[in-house]
């Protein structure tokens, strides 16, 4: 494949058509409610091309893929497959047109054999399919025991089954959604070999990933999405890692913008309130860090870096595999969630709807439910409940019509404040905030930031987990970044900026002072 520039000029939406263009996406726009997710996407994929698609959380990658696979319908814009306009809105038709999406978590039928898994859903006879499948495997030179049950397969093998499903449907374009996120190093190597095989067979691939080094290893072209637009697109050889990181950042980054002037903790005279020593669990390994009193420690990283797993394991929701966690002098390793809370750690979960609120409860219930022990021995003392709920409503400026309002009827921001109030009521020493402003509008976001800073001033320690680099930069006194389950860098106040954090989160940060190799 010679190098081809697919898009000469993105801004005026004109594309240069090539005869071997498999998929052509024109000015796709899509909104959910009032939230515009895709703001005019143009993208082309040709035969034998591996297009790496990179983007942060909420950039719109999955929405775009779902539109291509006819799972969602775009508001405006057209999709052309092999030069023909797609009009269908059924996923089955997208498959028939030669597109196949390999989901991040393979969707196999665990109790069926590999062969049954591959041939289910076809209209041809099983005998013919078997022959075609065996031919296909021979052609690709892959080996696979077709009679094994799918539940005995590793993730890598499951992906292979998904690929075969697509190829047996004569797919010309495969979409791989973060295929390496659950693979071991050797499996990644063999996946790359497979992708190269497919490349040679002139199959086009859209390769969604969070790992920049993979772009240079496997992709021919690269596109970066941010906030529903494509900020950068072209052959991989035209770009460097730094250029890709720039593409991920908002255009008008005011570096070191400090919305909140708060003083740094005096680290020299402080003892850490919480420390992890070689802490390992499912999804993370050998984590060491300290949190000091009155400090906001940012924990940055991309989705799947192991941040939430780390937090929930500290919080006693999953088993510890090694290492120690200390709160003050107390060893809290492997304690149950109730004990961890009693000792003084509390956690604001990432998924508020699922884990954070009691949807059909009122504000009072949602505030007091974390500290019911204080509200009487057997019968609840509703007067006390009312008093302290009122206190938090005033302190945190929660906008409610009354304590008896149902939490489900509040806006996301006010819900989050109630969750924070509940956690403060348990009198914690360390508060872990996991994506505290996800799904919260801009003004409420400011309120939450003010609350977080207030907490710090009051001497609480905060571990702030976020994928939003701007948020981390604004709030944190120190930042650690996680990459593939390990902490790869620590930044002091002076070095905290979006550029550094983004590079580190994607595993491509180079420490200029030390000249450390990556």
């Amino acid at each position, binding site marked *: 494949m010679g190098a081809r520039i697919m898009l000469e000029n993105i801004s005026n939406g004109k594309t240069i058509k090539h005869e071997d263009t498999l998929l052509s996406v024109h000015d796709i726009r899509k909104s959910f409610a009032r939230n515009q997710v895709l703001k005019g996407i143009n993208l082309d994929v040709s035969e034998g091309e591996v297009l790496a698609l990179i983007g942060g959380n909420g950039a719109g990658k999955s929405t775009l893929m779902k539109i291509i696979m006819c799972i969602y319908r775009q508001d405006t814009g057209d999709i052309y497959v092999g030069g023909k306009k797609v009009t269908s809105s059924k996923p089955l038709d997208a498959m028939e047109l030669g597109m196949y999406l390999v989901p991040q978590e393979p969707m196999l039928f665990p109790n*069926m054999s590999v062969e049954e898994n591959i041939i*289910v*859903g076809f209209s041809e006879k099983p005998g013919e399919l078997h022959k075609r499948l065996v031919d296909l495997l021979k052609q690709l030179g892959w080996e696979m025991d077709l009679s094994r049950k799918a539940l005995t397969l590793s993730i890598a093998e499951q992906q292979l089954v998904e690929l075969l499903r697509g190829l047996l449907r004569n797919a010309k374009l495969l979409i791989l959604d973060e295929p390496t996120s659950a693979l071991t190093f050797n499996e990644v190597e063999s996946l790359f070999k497979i992708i190269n095989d497919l490349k040679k067979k002139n199959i086009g691939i859209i390769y969604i990933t969070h790992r920049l080094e993979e772009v240079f290893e496997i992709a021919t072209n690269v596109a970066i999405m941010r906030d529903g637009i494509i900020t950068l697109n072209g052959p991989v050889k035209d770009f460097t890692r730094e250029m890709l990181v720039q593409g991920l950042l908002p255009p008008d980054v005011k570096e070191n913008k400090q919305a909140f002037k708060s003083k740094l903790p005096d680290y020299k005279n402080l003892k850490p309130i919480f420390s992890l020593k070689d802490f390992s669990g499912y999804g993370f390994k050998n984590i060491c860090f300290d949190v000091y009193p009155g400090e906001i420690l940012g924990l940055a990283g991309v989705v799947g870096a192991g941040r939430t797993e780390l937090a929930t394991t500290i919080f006693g929701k999953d088993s510890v595999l090694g290492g120690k966690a200390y709160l003050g002098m107390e060893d809290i390793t492997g304690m149950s969630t109730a004990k961890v809370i009693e000792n003084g750690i509390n956690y604001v979960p990432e998924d508020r709807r699922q884990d954070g609120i009691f949807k059909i409860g009122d504000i009072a219930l949602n505030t007091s439910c974390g500290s019911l022990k204080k509200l009487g021995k057997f019968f609840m003392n509703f007067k006390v409940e009312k008093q302290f709920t009122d206190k938090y409503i005033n302190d945190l400026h929660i906008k409610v019509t009354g304590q008896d309002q149902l939490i489900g009827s509040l806006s996301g921001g006010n819900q989050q404040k109630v969750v924070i109030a509940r956690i403060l009521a348990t009198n914690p020493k360390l508060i872990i905030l996991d994506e505290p402003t996800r799904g919260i509008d801009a003004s409420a976001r400011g309120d939450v930031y003010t609350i977080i800073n207030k907490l710090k001033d009051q001497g609480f320690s905060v571990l702030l987990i976020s994928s939003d680099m701007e948020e981390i930069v604004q709030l944190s006194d120190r930042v650690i970044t996680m990459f593939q389950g390990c902490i790869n860098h620590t930044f002091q106040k002076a070095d905290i900026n979006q550029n550094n954090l983004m590079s580190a989160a994607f595993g491509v940060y180079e420490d200029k002072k030390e000249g450390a190799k990556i």
Partner: protein
Amino acid sequence: MNTIKKFINRRECTSIIFLIALYVIVGLINPTFIQSDNIMLCLNGATVYTICAIGMAFVIFTGEIDASIGATLGLSAAVVATMVRDGKPFTLTVLVAVCIGLVIGLINGFGVAVLKVPSIIMTIGINSIVRGISYVYTGGAWVENVPKNFKELSQQGIAGLSWMYIGTIIIMIAIYMFLAKTKRGRYFQAVGDNEDGATHLGLPVTGTHLISFVICAVCASLASVVFVSRIGFVTPTSGNGYEMKAIAACVIGGISLSGGIGNMVGATFGALIMASISRILVFLGFSSNYDNTITGILLITIVVFDAVMQHRNTEKARRERLSARTETVAESKVVGGNM
């Protein structure tokens, strides 16, 4: 050797071994139990349960449950009994029975597949509605005086085995082949095994759920024909508890309540075990009042074991996935933390 191993590893095999062991043990205590006459009686007595279990298997395959077949069977039996008593033709009677099943099955299926009501709630509700209808229909009275020639239908057969049981087994084998060999048959297993996966491949998930409920209810109404022929009268509570028997038959036969695992052969043997329990109790000199308790214990034991295994497997898979992420770094040593 390999074939034997393969056979023993199959889930329905456990129920066959269990059945044989049960018969041998009871036979050792009371030899009359394993005489061919008695075994034939056990088989014939399992006809109603077997038909119900075959229908139930479809629903359980797809990961749902139907708690309404007891009432469906009861209502249908009451209608069948009145019709044959009044001298209506046999074919018309069967047709009406099937229609009753069809309607109830469609309602269940619509609620679960289209309106997304949890199947246990939907079908318990329908169960009590249908039971109520059968009280209204019969006026709370027994339907008796079923003609002799209709009752004899279940007595006729070859070598002590009734035609009805033989017919049931033939239908069972046909359904087994349909599920194992045809692409439509695969859908039931696929939907129960991984519903999201089935949607992802564009399989007709809603339709499959709907059809499974229809088949289940129609099976129950067909079973009612056999029921009337065998018992000879219908009370307002007829069929009560049959849903539990059918579910237990499926589960004991190796069909997983989480869907996607098992087959009709297992369900048939499960039904035979269910039907044999009350007879066994009598032969061992116990009261058959223990029947329900023993059914319950068997069911709970297997379901608990299944649930524990299921949970362990998903947890293991989740942990393996998470561990794979950290291994990448450990092996490739991309960066060193500078803490």
